[in-house]
């Protein structure tokens, strides 16, 4: 039984090893290393778009259900072929480039945006020894690469020569740079506790205890997770932080002037970003692929999809932030909270017992109360409505 489980767990790793050993029969060693990288790369290149396609379907289905609709259900059973139909539509659509657009940059932007989205996949640990590249500075790499995403969006918005796009691009730049900071700081506690920048090592440090050793089950973990998750939502421009697109304000923001496959590439990048950011959130705070009984990759994908569902849930519920509130939320609320959180982690490190729990909750409570008091604009006013005859 144990054997069977572990063999299912390692099924992809074994398959790759088997293919490599087959190649080793007639290929030199340096080519095998290249082949190993190629196989991982090809898998990721296929995985990314497929995940994106089915995420769109999932999102449409879930939002449909939230809104008491069916969602797509015509193409294939339960609409399972809908993403393919969408893909065909996108491919066959006319590609419209505005007459005054900066043609080269306009073309480059959608291509450039997919690259960092795919690059992040490299350091995501999909399962036990299923990280494409086990970098010892994995998190640093992730933070660095994910912040590149701003550039292509700004390229696209600038090259379109459209005022709406331009506004969207400005918003993106401001928003992404601001949310980069609390996100990075929210990661710090996990690094502090696992004492490593490698994603694999972070997962390994959360092992055991039937999942109770996950970082989320500590006071700093839950705060860090919530902040990281909010920042991740903002990073990939998902509602309620979807200001760069802001359908009801800026038409479609930075991709107003894109159509056909270029538009699809923007979407692909957005969904892949959502997936990887949720994957990283699961890795950092939810124990990554750690979990009892089930194979490790099932745990990883399960956790990631739960987080994505929460993102979709947000989309189905919340109205959009306004630009100044959004920035204020990042700088005046999340940033101080992350700093307090780092302090808490240090506290936890030294006194890991009941005292630490009570102390952390006290510190958190006080800091939250102070932050709410300091940010009066975030608190709803009480209104009274007289009924007169």
């Amino acid at each position, binding site marked *: 039984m144990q054997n069977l489980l572990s063999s299912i767990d390692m099924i992809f790793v074994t398959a790759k090893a088997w293919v490599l050993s087959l190649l080793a029969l007639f290929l030199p060693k340096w080519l095998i290393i290249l082949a190993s990288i190629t196989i991982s790369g090809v898998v990721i290149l296929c995985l990314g778009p497929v995940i994106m396609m089915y995420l769109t379907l999932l999102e449409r289905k*879930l939002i449909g*259900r*939230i*809104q*008491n*609709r*069916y969602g797509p259900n015509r193409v294939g059973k339960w609409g399972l072929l809908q993403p393919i139909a969408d893909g065909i539509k996108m491919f066959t659509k006319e590609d419209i480039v505005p007459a005054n657009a900066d043609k080269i940059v306009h073309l480059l932007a959608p291509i450039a945006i997919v690259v960092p989205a795919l690059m992040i996949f490299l350091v995501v640990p999909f399962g036990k020894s299923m990280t494409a590249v086990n970098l010892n500075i994995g998190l640093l790499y992730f933070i660095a690469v994910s912040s590149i995403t701003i550039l292509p969006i700004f390229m696209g918005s600038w090259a379109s020569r459209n005022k709406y796009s331009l506004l969207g691009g400005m918003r993106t730049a401001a928003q992404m740079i601001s949310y980069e900071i609390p996100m990075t700081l929210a990661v710090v506690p996990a690094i502090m506790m696992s004492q490593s920048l490698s994603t694999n090592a972070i997962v390994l440090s959360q092992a055991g205890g039937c999942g109770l050793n996950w970082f989320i089950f500590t006071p700093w973990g839950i705060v860090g997770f919530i902040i990281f998750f909010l920042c991740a939502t903002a990073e990939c421009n998902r509602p309620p932080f979807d200001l760069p697109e802001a359908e009801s304000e800026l038409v479609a923001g930075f991709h107003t002037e894109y159509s056909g496959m270029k538009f699809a590439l923007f979407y692909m990048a957005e969904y892949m970003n959502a997936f990887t950011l949720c994957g990283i959130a699961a890795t950092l705070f939810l124990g990554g692929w750690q979990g009892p009984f089930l194979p490790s990759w099932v745990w990883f994908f399960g956790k990631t999809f739960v987080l994505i569902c929460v993102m979709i*849930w*947000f989309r*189905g*519920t*919340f109205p959009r932030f306004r630009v100044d509130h959004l920035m204020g939320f990042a700088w005046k609320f999340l940033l101080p909270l992350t700093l307090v959180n780092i302090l808490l982690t240090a506290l936890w490190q030294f006194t890991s017992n009941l005292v630490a729990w009570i102390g952390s909750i006290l510190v958190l409570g006080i800091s*939250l109360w102070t932050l*709410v008091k300091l940010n009066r604009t*975030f*608190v*709803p006013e009480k209104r009274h409505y007289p009924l007169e005859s």
Partner: protein
Amino acid sequence: MTIFGWGVFKGMMVTLKNFLTSYFRKPDEGGIFTVQYPEEREKAIENFRNFPFLVYDGSPEKIRCVACGICERECPPKCIHIEMEIDVAGKPTRKPAVFDIDYGLCMNCGMCEEVCPFDSIFMDHAFEVTAPERNEGLVRNKKELSKSNEYFQKVRPTLASSIDQKRKAAEEKKKAAAAPQGVGGQAQPPQGQEPK
């Protein structure tokens, strides 16, 4: 003082509840209310009015319309065009030779149905009217517009049966009145409604 973030949480609970109940609630209790259109259809509502049609009794020659032109004149967007049929002797036959309705112009107000003194024009239920072109494609001529009384009975049962009763009563009354004088013949329009 409520906790900061409570409103957000409550909203999320509402959407979660709707998500879950969409799987088992009935449509009129807040479940999914989508009607899967081409396969399923909503129950037709009798009073629904769309485009007008002409009623005939029995065969299309016995069309009720006498081409009096009241509907043509009262139609607010002027989408009806009628020409009286003229027989060999040059006398009007009290039958329409041409009866065109431009569905592209018609605004489904039901005015023609209201003003018609001969119970001949009524509003149909057919709403799947399409044409590739908007000028000629949507003009319906007399042949296309004429529909049997049975169709009328099927589409709007209560209205049709009440009108049938009314017509029958009027006919019997006329017979009774006509029998002693021995003059039969054409239906006369009610007093005061014949256009001058």
